[in-house]
């Protein structure tokens, strides 16, 4: 009887609640000079989920990621058409303040790039320049909570004044995540955040992503298909500048609909 009761205690797979779209991109085309890097990309990014962008090198996935917080603006020859809306607001509208946009849509890069300052200053820098805090204690609170959310607090609490560059690669990456979180973004973009990290540091970031998606919408570009499969709820596959397929991650990895997707995820095309 007891055994039967135990057996009935089944583990239920988490079911995805239908999510609201945080970002919608419609017919986005990106040109670098004459070269078209993205062709007519229409993709919804669901709120408070991890969306993985996968595809071979040069497929446009990083280009697309950079469109989401207008990082491509800094490239002179880059031209963008189509619309990208964050919470229904066109982020390419003339009156949008790019600095504010980037506070809402934070970014973490491939190589950890802490400022050559103390751990504390690395995290405090954003809230300071955006004027998000009004007192020293408030700033200290923001630094502490950001480091906690980035799962780094326990490792650095007693050495906040030491340089951020003195941390290990994985810690530096989590410091960069804490720095992005400190300005209270809604969306965090990550461009291959684990490619410079060892498997343990990678696992910690992946665990962190799982925690962060409770509060943030995350878009991650990754070359590791296993990583995309592990961390994301939605996967979008890009190839030669086209969005070939997007959908539930489990669907993309078990029953991809497009042959190109199938060939890529099974390792038949590079």
């Amino acid at each position, binding site marked *: 009887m007891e055994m039967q009761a135990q057996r009935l205690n089944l583990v239920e797979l988490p079911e995805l609640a239908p999510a609201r779209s945080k970002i919608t991109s419609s017919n986005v085309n990106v040109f670098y000079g004459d070269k078209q890097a993205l062709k007519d990309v229409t993709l919804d990014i669901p709120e408070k989920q991890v969306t993985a962008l996968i595809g071979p090198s040069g497929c446009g996935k990083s280009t697309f990621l950079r469109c989401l917080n207008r990082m491509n603006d800094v490239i002179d020859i880059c031209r963008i058409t189509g619309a990208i809306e964050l919470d229904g607001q066109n982020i390419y509208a003339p009156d949008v303040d790019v600095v504010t946009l980037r506070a809402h849509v934070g970014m973490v890069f491939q190589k950890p790039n802490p400022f050559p300052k103390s751990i504390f200053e690395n995290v405090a820098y954003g809230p300071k320049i955006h004027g998000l805090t009004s007192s020293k204690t408030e700033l200290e609170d923001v630094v502490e909570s950001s480091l906690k959310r980035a799962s780094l607090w326990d490792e650095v609490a007693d050495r906040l004044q030491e340089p951020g560059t003195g941390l290990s690669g994985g810690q530096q990456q989590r410091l960069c995540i804490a720095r992005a979180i400190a300005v209270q973004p809604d969306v965090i973009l990550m461009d291959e955040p684990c490619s410079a990290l060892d498997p343990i540091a990678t696992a910690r970031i992946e665990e962190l992503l799982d925690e962060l998606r409770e509060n943030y919408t995350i878009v991650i570009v990754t070359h590791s298909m296993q990583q995309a*499969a592990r961390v994301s709820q939605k996967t979008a596959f890009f190839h030669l500048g086209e969005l070939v397929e997007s959908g539930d991650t489990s669907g993309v990895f*078990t*029953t991809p609909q497009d042959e190109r997707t199938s060939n890529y995820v*099974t*390792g*038949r095309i590079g």
Partner: protein
Amino acid sequence: MESNHIVTSFDQELGQAETLFLEMGGLVESQIAEAAEALVRRDVEQAEKVRTRDSEVDALETRIDELAVRLLALRQPVADDLRMIVSTLKVSANLERIGDYAKNVAKRTTVLANSNPVGSSSDTIRRMSKLVREMLTNVLDAYVARDVSAADEIRRRDEEVDQIHNALFREILTYMMEDPKAITPCMHLLFIAKNIERIGDHVTGIAEQVHYLVNGKMPDDDRPKGDVTSFISHELGAESDRA
């Protein structure tokens, strides 16, 4: 099978799994054929051969399992590769069970060979086993060719097997009523018939795996169930209230 992964050794291992799988399928087919032949010819020696060869079927299943687990662990397959490995695991389990049924038929044949033949039921059993063996050959072909419509055709043919089984069940009941001395061989024949009927069910299980392999999901429709022997009452031929 498509063989164009960037990593050639992955293709080689997938190819190895398919080769083992086909070898197992071929062996199981011949086990069914030989078990039926041994029964009809009352050939104890051949029946004995079928019994001993079952260990070869089991060994192949173990090798397929090991290779599949290795592929899952080391290659982390996805999409059609993943589905191929998962369905190979399931189908090899089906084949192993089919092999067991062939062995059971052979076991009972050794007993039956020493008793008087009962009516024409062994001919009917031969017909039935020929049918399931053909279905097995066809389903393995459908599996290799990833042919869903051929697999569906085989699922429908299982109804034929069930009908022969029903008829045989009634026929054997008659023999038992006519002559109580025939009860022992008749019971063996009944079990043999049931074994072959179960082989048909496992063949349709493989046909369903062809669906999974190709579409990533099992067929939606319920296959017609034709085995009504569970409802046949002692009043010969009468089917009890099936509610």
